[in-house]
Every structure is written in C-alpha cells, then in structure tokens.
C-alpha cells in the first residue's frame, strides 16, 4: 500500500519525537556523574556509524525534495 501525505506527516512526527528523546537522553547523561563501567568501544562505534548513516539518508532525502 502506498503512503499518502498524512502518513508522511506521521513519519516526520515520529522522527521529531525520536530526536527529542535522543536530545533528552543525551542531556540527562551529561548531567549524570560518569558511570564506573562504560559502553564497549565497538558498541559506541556502531552507534556513531548508525547516526552518520541516518544523517546521510536524511541529507539525500532533503536534496531529492529540493530537486522536486
């Protein structure tokens, strides 16, 4: 089934809420004292790679929308 504009708006709403969750989690983490055990380096690298990939995908989508 193809998505319509309302579903597109819903997707954007989901993205906004998820970003807000990330922002809140990072702010909360910055205010906490550093934990004794830190996340494994491999996990952190994977997280960074996923963030970069999502940002790249968003950039591609925005460029495509700009081209019409």
């Amino acid at each position, binding site marked *: 089934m193809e998505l*319509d*504009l309302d579903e*597109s708006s819903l997707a954007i709403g989901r993205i906004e809420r998820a970003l807000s*969750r990330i922002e809140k989690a990072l702010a909360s983490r910055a205010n906490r004292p550093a934990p004794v055990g830190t996340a494994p380096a491999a996990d952190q690298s994977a*997280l960074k790679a*996923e963030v970069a990939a*999502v940002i790249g995908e968003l950039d591609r989508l925005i460029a*495509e929308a700009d081209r019409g």
Partner: protein
Amino acid sequence: MADVKLTIGGRPYDVHCADGEEAQLIQLASVVDEKVRTMPGVTEVRQLLFAALMLADETQEARGKVEKAAPQSDSLRAAVALAESREAAARDELKATVEREKAALAELEAARQKAATAAPSANPSNNRALLQIADRIEALAGRVEQLP
C-alpha cells in the same frame, strides 16, 4: 405647386412654391417684412432693395463666422480623432492584458494540476524513505536511552 399669399411692408404678393414648403416661405417672408418695416416712407423698390442689402450683409457676416470657426472645428475634429484612437489603443491594451491574465491563469491551473498529479508519484518513495528513517531514529533513540 401651392399658392401662397405673402404680405411684406403692408403690400400683398401672390407667389408659388412646392407643396409642403408653404410654412417655410411664410417664415422667410416674415424676415423680409421685418427688415422692410424698419424703413418707412421710402418707395417699395427701395424698401425691398435695402432689405435685400441688409440680408446680404447678414449672410456675409454669418459666412465669415463659419469660415472663422472652421479651423476650430478642424481642431475639434482632430481632437476627437485623437481621443478615439487613444480609446481604441487603450481598449486593445486592456484586451491584451485580459488575454495575458487568462493565459497566466491557465498556466497556473495547468501547473497546479501537474503538481497534483505529480505529487502522488513522487511522494511514495520519499514517504517510504521517511518511514525507514523514522524507524532507524527511533531505534537510535532506544539505544541512546539505554547507554550506561
């Protein structure tokens, strides 16, 4: 032909004129009679001579006025012609503007319809990509929230 009895300077005159012109003839005779009555005590011939001279003078004066007014009349005619040509030009310009506006409206309507038909075909892939990004960012949010 019609018989008409005119009275000029108190003297009767029998004249003929075309049918239907009687009233006009009587009116003209009254003009001559008016002139003749301004010079009593002279002979009939002199009365008519002076009346004829006065009427000739009035005719000449009237002709002079007409000739004097002719240039003004020409100017008026030229002004009217100019106004008419300007009006025609303004009407043409208005018509062209209306046509341009109609064309612009048609173009706008065509663009609107094109956008309306193009949107559904362009949106699905973008929408799918947006949904995938939403999934990935939500997963990222879950992972960030679980960071120690």
